[in-house]
């Protein structure tokens, strides 16, 4: 069977964002996959150097819509470490709460999109209907559904009022009960099992060798979670389980993420029930003393690492952000090869790619196409 090369993206219904995958097919079987991402490269790191730390928070928050809190918390922790500022306990607790709410928001969003990728639009509609509860909680706490901007250097900008607490707890109960239903659907619906079991295999050793992170790594049996291994904020004092599964396939990732939603609901409840008293922020001078620092944070998609270097002025000298999705691209090419064309969207969706996180840019070279003559004719209007 002659090989045909089919481009997936950058504008493609399967991809919420521009990313390009050049797949070499033999019939329906994928034999070669080249990953090309980075259409979202906006040059944020250079822009960070031209703005003050305070303005950088809002710039870094907009690296990715779904893990905005992850990036701002990581960045604020870095700047606070440089300025040797002691963040009050209540602020750290609120950061953990919003962080876990964001994990709920991100995982439920992913479960819906994964359903859409395999044609299960009903799951997409139902999961996103229930996700509205999390969006309401975040809008209540942060004032905006997606960019909650709760962080500032030295603590948080808004407090959790008592009546908010009762509303949040009510919503979390509804969410927990619905998520239990989705655990059942995810493990028992036959067509979903048929589409996810045994697809996008990533064995344990390959996952470690290629440096995968987050649920993709934990679904291959590797027990790594920055919240427990490198405890930041209040995670050292909270007890929570790190979910792993040794299925190494897309179904394993579905199970890990859905169970993580249940785990996050428990954490949110625990934080809400014993919210420490005290101020919510501490004053930090605008000029940060020179130094360099590395901070790591467990974003919904995996380990998010920031490196900030300051030179004593009020503008950072270098800000380096490596979002979790970039680490998973290497294992993505490995997962795609050997699968079928029909599996490509769900395999791509399985690492929950956030192209804007990847923040990198590449272009497909239009001239290179497959060998089959019909397909060498490009789509022309």
């Amino acid at each position: 069977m002659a090989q045909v090369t089919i481009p997936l993206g950058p504008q493609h219904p399967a991809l919420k964002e521009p990313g390009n995958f050049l797949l070499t097919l033999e019939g329906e079987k994928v034999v070669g996959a080249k990953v090309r991402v980075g259409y979202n490269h906006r040059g944020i790191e250079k822009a960070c150097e031209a703005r003050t730390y305070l303005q950088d928070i809002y710039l870094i928050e907009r690296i990715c819509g779904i893990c905005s809190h992850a990036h701002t918390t990581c960045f604020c922790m870095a700047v606070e470490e440089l300025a040797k500022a002691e963040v009050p306990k209540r602020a750290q607790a609120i950061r953990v709460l919003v962080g876990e709410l964001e994990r709920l928001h991100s995982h439920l969003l992913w479960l819906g999109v994964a359903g859409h990728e395999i044609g299960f639009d009903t799951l997409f509609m139902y999961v996103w209907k229930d996700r509205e509860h999390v969006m309401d909680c975040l809008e209540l706490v942060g004032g905006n559904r997606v960019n909650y901007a709760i962080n500032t250097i030295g603590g948080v900008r808004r407090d959790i009022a008592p009546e908010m607490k009762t509303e949040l707890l009510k919503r979390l109960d509804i969410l927990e009960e619905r998520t239990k239903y989705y655990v059942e659907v995810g493990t028992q619906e036959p067509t979903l099992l048929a589409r996810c079991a045994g697809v996008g295999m990533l064995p344990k050793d390959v996952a470690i060798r290629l440096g995968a992170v987050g649920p993709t790594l934990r679904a291959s049996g590797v027990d790594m979670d920055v919240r427990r291994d490198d405890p930041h904020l209040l995670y050292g004092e909270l007890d929570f389980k790190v979910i792993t599964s040794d299925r190494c396939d897309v179904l394993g990732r579905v199970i890990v993420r859905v169970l993580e939603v249940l785990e996050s609901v428990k954490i949110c409840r625990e934080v809400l029930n014993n919210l420490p008293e005290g101020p919510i922020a501490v004053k930090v001078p605008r000029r940060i003393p020179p130094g360099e620092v590395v901070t790591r944070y467990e974003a919904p998609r995996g380990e998010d690492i920031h490196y900030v270097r300051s030179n004593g002025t009020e503008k950072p000298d270098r800000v380096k952000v490596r979002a979790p999705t970039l680490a998973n691209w290497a294992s993505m090419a490995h997962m795609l090869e050997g699968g079928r064309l029909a599996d490509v969207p769900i395999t791509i969706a399985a690492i929950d790619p956030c192209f804007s996180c990847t923040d990198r840019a590449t272009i497909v070279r239009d001239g290179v196409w497959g060998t089959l003559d019909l397909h060498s004719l490009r789509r022309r209007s």
Partner: protein
Amino acid sequence: MEEGIKKGLEERFGAAVSNVVIPRPRRMFADVPREKLLEVLSHIKDKMGFTHLSTITGLDAGDHLEALYHTASKTVSLSVRVKLPTEDPKIPSVLSVYPGAEFYEKELEDLVGVVVDGLPQGRRYPLSEDWPKDEHPLRKSWVKAG
């Protein structure tokens, strides 16, 4: 835990690994000359459990360039720094030790202008194809035109 790693590095490499700094628990910085980089990385990966290369940070420190290899074991994050003269920024590729580092090294090459030999040539990453070859946005000297 970090002290043990620091002692282990100094025994093994002696002067090669200089000014090992431990700013806070679970964070370490170390300087390594360019020639010893691959050796140090494969040692800490196989012997000391730093199996995960988080990322590579390239930066322009005014008089010289720097490349920081942030590696992580189960709990500790060790950043290996390599100082490079601005006029001859060549560095060996670490794909042999960490195969997942292709995108990090392409980024190093594109944004900071460090020449990584041994990196398979492919499409430019992260800059676009029509971006002039010798312009590296993260250099201090580079200013956005217009």
